[in-house]
């Protein structure tokens, strides 16, 4: 055995265990640095009836002590029948036989219990993991008035349970695959076997498996590893913390990724429209849903164009404003020493600062930020003749509208693009804005995520339920999105 110990840890992990309990325990003791490593426990005992020595190894902080005490140790000690196998003595729900040292280590690291028996060249693995975490709470970022409120939490098992609760069908597959080498982070790939396009699934798996990273702690990090264009301003993978939304996508043939430590799920491939939509859109009655959709598209345009339009009009297209309004504007602008573009940029940056600082501020001081923001930066700036009142209105309107785009990624996109429009408007008025708009649209059209065009099904056209800017009646949403090439297009047949 000493020769086995002399092997380096990496090749030792590939060895199988021998039947000699003492030497095997020496290996595990050295791997876990027992007794320095305080929460790795070893319990030695003599199995009743069989009269064999056994050792139980587990990490106490991530295992369920009830299971170990009542179902493992108690049964092993109290056994009196000498003809029974170890499997038959234990009353645990699962039991797995593992031989390779590395695999046993992995199981223990996951919170399972390994039982080593003298004379047996296999380890019995008992499922007993119990990680600490939050319970299921309300969704914080994707607020909805109607419809389910529960949100994903940091435990993938709980998240999968939430999804299974909504799809009671055997074709929902939960695949598990490791994504990092060192920390052994596991990724759950969820899809509907009878809907998902195999090519798409294959390309997602390939991309995930091609990662060579020591550790990917959660989905927010994984997202950046697997997206198509890392430097693009447009996001291509959707985050959602609502299981009902994830399920809606699953049932359309999308693929969902889940991971421990992520209170969210990734939906891929996401088009522009998935960032624009909310789950609420389908829960509200059609008229109300389309009303909030139109509000949202209006908010999108206001955020993008309000400030830039103000600059363009005051600098290049003055004749457009009715004379009375023009006089009113110029009266307030008269005492302001800056050109309008500086004025707008000052206020926009101030608004972004309030927003970012307000987000990071510890909650006891939170209200202070509101007072500072509203009073000092708004009213006092006007009184000090730094900005004109109209600019405050326009920037506030744009800033307020930007909150109507709920998705965090798309929200950043819109906020950043706004600055591009402001600069182009300052340089060339409407001409510059139209040019930038055209370039952005061309760019959006050229984005593909996992082979799916970003603005489909609007263009290029695919058979779908035409859920783009406005939605149709639920009764008329009879097709799954054609750009995913699902195995079953029809939402009614086959279900």
């Amino acid at each position, binding site marked *: 055995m000493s020769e086995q110990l002399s092997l380096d840890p990496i090749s030792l992990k590939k060895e199988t265990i021998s039947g000699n309990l003492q030497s095997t325990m020496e290996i595990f003791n050295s791997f876990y640095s027992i007794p320095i490593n305080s929460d790795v426990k070893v319990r030695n005992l003599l199995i009743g009836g069989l009269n064999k020595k056994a050792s139980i190894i587990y990490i106490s902080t991530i295992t369920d002590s009830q299971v170990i005490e009542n179902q493992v140790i108690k049964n092993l000690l109290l056994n009196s029948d000498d003809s029974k196998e170890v499997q038959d003595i234990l009353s645990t729900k699962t039991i797995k036989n593992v031989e390779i040292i590395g695999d046993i280590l992995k199981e223990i690291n996951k919170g399972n219990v390994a039982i080593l028996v003298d004379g047996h060249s296999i380890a019995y693995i008992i499922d007993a993991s119990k990680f600490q975490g939050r319970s299921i709470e309300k969704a914080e970022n994707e607020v909805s008035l109607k419809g389910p409120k529960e949100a994903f939490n940091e435990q993938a098992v709980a998240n999968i349970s939430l999804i299974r609760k909504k799809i009671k069908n055997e074709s929902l597959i939960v695949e598990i695959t490791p994504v990092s080498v060192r920390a052994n982070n596991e990724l759950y790939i969820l899809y509907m076997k009878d809907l998902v396009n195999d090519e798409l699934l294959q390309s997602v798996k390939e991309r995930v498996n091609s990662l060579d990273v020591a550790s990917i702690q959660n989905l927010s990090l994984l997202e950046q590893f697997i997206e198509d264009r890392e430097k693009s301003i447009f996001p291509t993978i959707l985050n959602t913390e609502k299981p009902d939304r994830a399920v809606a996508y699953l049932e359309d043939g999308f693929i969902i990724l889940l991971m421990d430590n992520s209170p969210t799920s990734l939906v891929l491939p996401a088009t522009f429209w998935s960032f624009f939509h909310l789950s609420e859109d389908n829960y509200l009655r059609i008229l109300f849903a389309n009303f909030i959709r139109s509000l949202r598209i209006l908010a999108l345009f206001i955020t993008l164009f309000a400030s830039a339009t103000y600059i363009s009009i005051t600098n290049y297209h003055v004749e457009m404003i009715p004379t009375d309004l023009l006089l009113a504007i110029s009266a307030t602008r008269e005492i302001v020493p800056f050109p309008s573009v500086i004025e707008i940029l000052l206020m926009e940056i101030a608004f972004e600062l309030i927003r970012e600082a307000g987000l990071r501020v510890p909650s006891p001081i939170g209200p202070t930020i509101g007072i500072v923001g509203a009073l000092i930066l708004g009213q006092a700036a006007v009184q000090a003749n730094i900005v004109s009142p109209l600019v405050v209105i326009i920037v506030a309107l744009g800033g307020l509208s930007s909150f109507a785009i709920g998705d965090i990624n798309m929200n950043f996109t819109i906020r950043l693009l706004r600055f591009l429009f402001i600069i182009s408007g300052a340089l060339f008025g409407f001409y510059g804005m139209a*040019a930038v708009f055209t370039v952005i*649209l061309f760019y959006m059209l*050229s984005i593909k995520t996992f082979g799916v065009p970003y603005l489909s099904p609007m263009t290029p056209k695919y058979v779908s339920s035409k859920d783009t800017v406005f939605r149709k009646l639920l009764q008329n949403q009879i097709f799954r999105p054609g750009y995913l090439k699902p195995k079953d297009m029809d939402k009614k047949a086959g279900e």
Partner: protein
Amino acid sequence: MDKTKGTIGTREFIAIIILTIGTKLADDTPSLFFSSMGSAAWMAPIIIGVTTILPVFFILKIFAIYPNKTFVEIIKEVFGKYVGFFVLFALWIFQIYALIIDSSIYTDIMGTMYFNDTPTIVIYAVLISVAAYGAKKGFEHISSYAWIIIAGVKVTALTVLVLIVLQGRPEFIFPLFGTGKWEIIKGSTSYISIFADLFYFAFIASYLKSTKVLKKGMWIGLAFITIEISTAIMSYVMLFDFNGIKLIDYPYHESIRTIQLGFIRNTESLFFPFWLIATFARFSFYFYISVLLFSTLFKISQKEFIIPILATLIVFFGMIPETPTFAIYTLRGEFLKLVTPVFLFLPFVIWVLAKLKGGSINDKKKAAE
């Protein structure tokens, strides 16, 4: 997983046809007809549209003979290697000339009507840069872009039309035959080539979903632009009368300066952005076709590299005329007259040659199968 190759559907194709040719109602094209035809100028697009049925018919016939070939391959096959090269080269020259002249006019429209103080070269450079970017992205994206913006463009155009009709005087369209019937025929047939872009759409036929899309798109597109341009010209006459309009170079832009929309006295800046995005679609397509022809002519596989060179050349050539409002107007008028017979007869010639040459090959292939 490239799922979009050759997925341009009918709606995208019609959209780009309408934006490429339909936008001509908002430049100096209508002025071509006013000087010789007066109040009857609106008849010109209809006569041109009806005459254009012939070349379009033959273009579609050609694709019926060679359904699986690109237009470049067809031209090379029917004319042979050397004459084919010459024909394609001539077509490229026409195309790049049109691109230079038209972009020069559009720059002039922006410079004279909206941005009096901005240097021409800056306006020109922005226009061509955006067009070049669109051309680089490819025809799929240009047509998709056209489809996205067409609703906005056409709704504003319709608003303008309604406002003009409401604020103009319908009786101005009389006398119905303007300067006389013979003048109408003469004036309009000289400029049949304003619809010559339809011929260039044949070059991208291989990007379409099927030849059915080509057929449907061409006919619907032709019908739409004929009615559209004709209505627009009629509305200009209603607003300015046939004498006043002769003095105007860019009737669309003068119209949106004249009309009022409720409390907004000056509406031109409201409609200007929509005209701009349509303009970008048009020049992206023109640029794309130039690059496509140039790269096939000289067998250049990496198109990205010739785009900046062509863009720079276009800006420099387009900057040469010092008074574009007049110089280019004349240059364009003469050019259109020159191209008219080419556009009218080339499809017919190709079809005849294809019938003689390709038809038999096709039959042999069919027999072999």
